[in-house]
């Protein structure tokens, strides 16, 4: 939520039941109310994560990544280094954020297939019919994605940086949309 420059124009007045009309662009959104010592009140936008079948627990995350923690160098027989503990910890946080936001926004969520590449980077892969989405946790500062819908490495694949959670939401919607609507 952004404070506007001209407070007088945007002052909101509560009715006699304490209700405030914020306007349609805030419709359906949830806010926490924080009362400050100086008497001011802040509305803080929040996301409620629904408790559905996809429980997000520390134990579940630990189990998901336990296999990676057990890897040693050349784990795949192709010379790949094992991912570092720090990167596994970061990937766990990334996955938790992605799952929480997908659930909060009502976007389909399926657990990814978790692996590691020849650089010791962590890969999260999803498949849906002919579409594939791979998220690469390359370092603690770099998370990227590759989406593909065919074999042509330039015309049927697209990559980019995953710098905002909403980027992943858009990718998820692409992954799970009807085949006929896909790129």
């Amino acid at each position, binding site marked *: 939520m952004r404070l506007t420059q001209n407070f007088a124009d945007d002052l909101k007045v509560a009715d006699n039941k304490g209700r405030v009309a914020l306007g349609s662009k805030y419709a359906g959104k949830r806010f926490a109310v924080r009362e400050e010592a100086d008497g001011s009140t802040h509305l803080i936008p929040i996301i409620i994560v629904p408790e559905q079948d996809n429980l997000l627990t520390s134990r579940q995350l630990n189990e998901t990544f336990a*296999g990676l923690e057990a890897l040693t160098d050349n784990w795949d027989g192709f010379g790949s280094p094992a991912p570092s503990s720090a990167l596994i910890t970061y990937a766990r946080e990334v996955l938790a954020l992605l799952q929480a936001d997908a659930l909060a926004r009502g976007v389909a969520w399926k657990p990814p297939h978790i692996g590691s590449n020849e650089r010791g980077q962590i890969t999260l892969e999803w498949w849906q019919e002919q579409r594939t989405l791979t998220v690469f946790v390359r370092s603690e500062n770099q998370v990227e994605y590759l989406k593909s819908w065919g074999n042509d490495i330039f015309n049927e694949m697209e990559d980019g940086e995953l710098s905002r959670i909403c980027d992943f939401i858009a990718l998820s919607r692409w992954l799970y949309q009807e085949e006929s609507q896909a790129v």
Partner: protein
Amino acid sequence: MSTENIMPEMPVADDEILYRAVLNEARFFPSDGQGGYRISSIAFNDVGRRPSVERGTFCPNGASDTQARFRSGSGVLSLVAAEIRQLATTHGSTGQVYFVDVEPVPLPANPAHAEIFGRPPFDTDKIFDRIKQALARIATVSIAPTMSSPQE
């Protein structure tokens, strides 16, 4: 097919079958939810960005020869050389043409050894990620792994 008169240095023919052995664990072969397998792009991991394969011409018993040379219970993927070469494409904005090819790299103990490579070489993670993705898409499972848990 007899391999007696075939030199390991001979170019890989378009119709040649190539085998890629991968460890028998679910990390490479996630379930497709319908009793089959997906092939993860990490099945083509390679530190030198030149994934190794074995030439079917030098595997008289097919994929099982490759499995025997790797590890017991390994899965074996197969690809066709022509399909690998057909991955060649042109970058839309730079016009750069990328060729994908396979060439023999016979080893003293393994004359069947060959490597998939790029012209120009797969010199960045992003390009190699795309190549691995494409290879996973055109590969098929010749021998299903004797699956063990990815936690093992």
